[in-house]
């Protein structure tokens, strides 16, 4: 469906704020890698910005980010809760 939508170029009609909310929901998932991998296979992430393409190195880094977030939540649970999606967004 996503691919069809992309082919028919209707994605440009989607409000950027709606995109943001959808991406944030994906980045908030416990396992971010799978949905992001799937999304980047189906829809080029260039709809965010044309420079953005996720490579294998990015996914490796994403895994490291996930591990670091788990480490933070485990070791520093008394500190402020951090916005995990914001950390992952920084990959872009």
């Amino acid at each position: 469906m996503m691919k069809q939508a992309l082919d028919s170029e209707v994605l440009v009609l989607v409000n950027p704020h709606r995109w943001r909310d959808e991406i944030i929901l994906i980045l908030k998932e416990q396992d971010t890698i799978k949905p992001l991998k799937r999304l980047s296979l189906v829809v080029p992430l260039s709809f965010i910005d044309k420079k953005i393409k996720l490579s294998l190195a990015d996914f490796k880094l994403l895994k490291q980010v996930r591990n670091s977030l788990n480490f933070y939540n485990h070791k520093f649970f008394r500190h402020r809760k951090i916005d995990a999606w914001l950390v992952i967004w920084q990959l872009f």
Partner: protein
Amino acid sequence: MAVILNKLSAAEVSQLAHKFGFKKGESIRLVSIKENQRVIRELSGKAKPSRIYNLLNQLSYETIIFYYACSQDKKVRKNIIYFMDKLSHLRLKIKGEDLKKAGLLPQNLYGKVLTELLEAKMDENIDGKDQELKLAAEIIDKLKRC
């Protein structure tokens, strides 16, 4: 870090954040990672605790965790953990009010004195209100001479 450097610049991230309607705070945190990459370089060398504090205290935890994740350098990671564990919640036992009570003048130096005192507390082994007051008096003397 090369992966990140090759992508969007700080200005592009800022534009993107605007386009997608991010909140101001979110936008600032997103841009800060691009603008503070020198922090990683500095943390990989030998740095005093007060330097580590000054480098990291200005950054959001999101940025710090991202730097932690990106860096494979043991020294950088160790410094980040040291900051989170020990330095981030280190506070002075005295306040401006205590300096005033002790009759230390001039009052317009209190902000600077307390900042220097906190840095000294990180780098040297200073503990207790009395030691802090004694050192505060020394710092005021030094600042008055400058």
